């Protein structure tokens, strides 16, 4: 042990003990039950989400007709979504949106911001919005998705995010970083809890916008403000977890668990 303490820093070959059993246990005892729990309770979860979101929208927009409907989503069974009328955008709204977005793009292209990753990401996002505007400009009064269909898409996307997160976070947290079980549980449930809150909030806000404004923003909601932000906070929480593990293994009581060859 004293010998190990002398090796304070050697990055070439150091590694941790293989923890396959720990990873498998984590997947079987934590991730798999969560996965199954979610799969078998989608009806209840989506009903709760839709009921609460519907209640909020109805109270915020009293004149609007919003209700909950059920549909089949094989192989998960029944899921609940909101049903409402989302008006197609008028030509004025479309034109205004195009002008504003084009103005922002032009400003960005001539700014010092040009060529930066954030700008390229924003350009991709604005492109989605412009495509949406152009579509409605040429196909006025077209309904690509009804309110019911689109809230169904949002719910299905959210289910996809949650299921994927359980598997991905389970694998990354479960199989790496040795035996710090408590910290792993905290990271896993922290990400899932955050994701549940964000998912619920997003579902409510997006449907609210579609009821109140128009269906012009459907594509933005689906592509731009969709899973990308989920991955963003997932990685941010993972970073907190990794930092904690680094502290434990580099200066904490687990320092001696490093293998040097």
């Amino acid at each position, binding site marked *: 042990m004293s010998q190990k303490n002398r090796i304070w*820093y050697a*990055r*070439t*070959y*150091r*590694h*941790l*003990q*293989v*923890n396959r059993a720990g990873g498998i246990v984590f997947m079987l005892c934590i991730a798999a039950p969560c996965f199954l729990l979610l799969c078998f309770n989608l009806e209840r979860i989506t009903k709760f989400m839709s009921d609460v979101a519907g209640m909020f929208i109805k109270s915020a927009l009293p004149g609007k007709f919003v209700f909950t409907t059920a549909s089949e989503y094989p192989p998960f069974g029944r899921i609940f979504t909101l049903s409402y009328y989302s008006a197609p955008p008028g030509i004025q709204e479309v034109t205004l949106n195009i002008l504003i977005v084009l103005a922002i793009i032009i400003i960005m292209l001539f700014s010092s911001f040009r*060529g*930066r*990753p*954030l700008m*390229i*990401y924003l350009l*991709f996002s604005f492109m*989605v919005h412009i*495509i*949406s505007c152009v579509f409605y400009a040429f196909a006025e009064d077209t309904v*690509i*998705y009804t309110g019911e*269909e689109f809230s*169904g*898409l*949002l719910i*299905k*996307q959210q*289910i*996809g*995010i949650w*299921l*994927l997160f359980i598997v*991905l976070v389970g*694998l*990354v947290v479960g*199989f*790496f*970083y040795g035996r710090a079980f408590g910290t792993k549980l905290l990271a896993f449930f922290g990400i899932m809890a955050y994701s549940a809150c964000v998912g619920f909030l997003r579902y409510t806000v997006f449907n609210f916008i579609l009821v109140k404004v128009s269906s012009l923003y459907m*594509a933005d909601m*689906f*592509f731009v403000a*969709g*899973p*990308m932000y*989920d*991955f*963003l*906070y997932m*990685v*941010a929480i*993972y*970073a907190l977890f*990794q*930092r904690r*593990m*680094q502290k434990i*293994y*580099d200066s904490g009581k687990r320092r001696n668990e490093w293998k040097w*060859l």
Partner: protein
Amino acid sequence: MEVAISIIKGYLIFVIVIMLVYAIRHFIFAINRFQGRQRMYYGDIYTSKMKRISVLVPMHNEEQVLDEALKALLNCDYDRDMLEIIPINDNSTDRTKEMLDDYHRRYEFIRPLHRDCPDRGKPVGLNEAMQLAEGEIIVVFDADYRPAKNLLKQLVIAFEDPEVGAVMGRVIPYNARKNILTRLINIERSGGYQVDQQARYNMRLIPQYGGTVGAFRKDVMLEMGGFDTAVLAEDTDLTFKMYRRGWKVMYANSAECYEEAPESWSVRARQIRRWARGHNQVMWRQTFPLLFSRNVTAREKLDGFLLLLVYAVPVILLFGHICSYLLFFMGEMDIFSGWWVLLFLGTYCSFGNFAPFYEIGVSLMLDGIKGEVFLLPLLLFNFYFYMWAITQGFFDSIADLITKRKVKWAKTTRFLNKGQANT
């Protein structure tokens, strides 16, 4: 219309499969490096007679950085009788020539090669220098690289193994703390070398020779006809040529060399575009020969194929995004609404040699780099940046393929100034 929709859906499934393959590949690499038994390098080989080596340093207008590079090389622990340094002054118009001649006056074994001819470029310069080189092993550095003291010995010792054709060392940015871009490059480099390259070496796959901080056997290279001057990524080309002829490429994780990472986004974009163009040129040339080579094992073929495809993946993904938009506006997104999430899995987790978040997380822990892990979320924006630059490079390579045009060598802009020289 239905046929078009079926094709688009089929393509999306193809993209998702590709993304999953890369995600699994990187997960295996990360697990292997973090918790697997490491394959040792040749550190314990003792030899009293070092091999004669020639260090080639291509230079084009490098007055800013050449001093530091040559000083670092002179500090290297290697028998001077067995060492020659050939800086290749490739049509420089600044003070590079005078500075090199001055070094030559002071150190006999520094023998500059002054090139003053229209066919400028790294591969052609290296080919010419190889003809003059007296060493049996050629070591290549870029002019902005600073080798660690034991680097030359570390690289060269592997050639005691008769199967080894080339060796690659580890690259670490020395200006990592300069700005957000260099910090991001630093963590990407950490993931790429500490985990990706070392795991490939552990698993006896194909560690990539990276064109600099590497060494190869001169006779093998000359037998292969030298570097192909029509290829921008002559390093990747060499890796696959070596494997197809039955040679192995080794990775020396402790052979560290310090580089200057680009400090501006425009320089980084040009660099990535050039890499993508060169790498995809190699992909068009080497994929089928690799797959049908008798000297390459099945696992090397699989890894080599995925490695060759690395700079095509962002383009495949970009078209996947476009297909998703099409499906959405056709009102056909229904079943893909959940699958779309998997495309983001690809976006975030499987981006070829730029390493997914868990791979970088693991490498930062192994390297003992503290705090930088909080930069991880920013990699998502970087992904769009890379996707754009790589797509341009990909189409450049297609244009090269069709028009057979001659490629032009472009040097990465240097940022070092005298005030920074000793940082």
